[in-house]
């Protein structure tokens, strides 16, 4: 059972990593706000699975805090969000 949990955590970690780099390299400034959301859900899922695999109950406390601060970071992103320019060297490619 523990191995299955770790495997699932690894799969989620990999999926989150690909998604994160996609979001971080995005030319549209707003999309980068998704990064922390992505890591919040993915990280929490991985943490819960790791906790279940290792049997350390306090791991879910870390997951709780991770989620709380992922939500908190939403507030952080409103700082200076309004006038962030899109980084757009090739103007038409990404915008549909």
């Amino acid at each position, binding site marked *: 059972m523990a191995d299955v*949990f770790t495997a699932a955590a690894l799969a989620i970690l990999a999926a989150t990593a690909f998604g994160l780099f996609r979001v971080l390299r995005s030319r549209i400034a707003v999309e980068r706000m998704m990064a922390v959301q992505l890591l919040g859900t993915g990280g929490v899922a991985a943490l819960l699975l790791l906790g279940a695999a290792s049997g350390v109950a306090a791991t879910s406390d870390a997951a709780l805090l991770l989620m709380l601060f992922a939500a908190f970071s939403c507030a952080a992103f409103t700082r200076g969000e309004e006038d962030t320019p899109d980084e757009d060297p090739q103007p038409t490619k990404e915008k549909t």
Partner: protein
Amino acid sequence: MTILAHVFTLLAVTAGALLFLAGTIGLLRFPDTLSRLHALSKADNLGLALIVLGLLPQAASLTDGLKLILIWLLAQLSAATASQLIAGSLNRRKSGP
């Protein structure tokens, strides 16, 4: 009974992990910001819900189970707020100056 719980856990966790993969594929493949946002917040949150649901039978105590549910509720709150903020910001940018 325990075997049934184990099977349920395995199924739910696998489905949850698959949903995370699906969410990432959506994020990589969808053409515009709003559909990518859609892929991210819906698929990932459903994935997390399935994993929480799968881990619930394995929880050692009632408090642990409640904590799992609280984590999921926080995830809902966070996802809802972040999506609204992102979409609102996108809207203002399109219609703005």
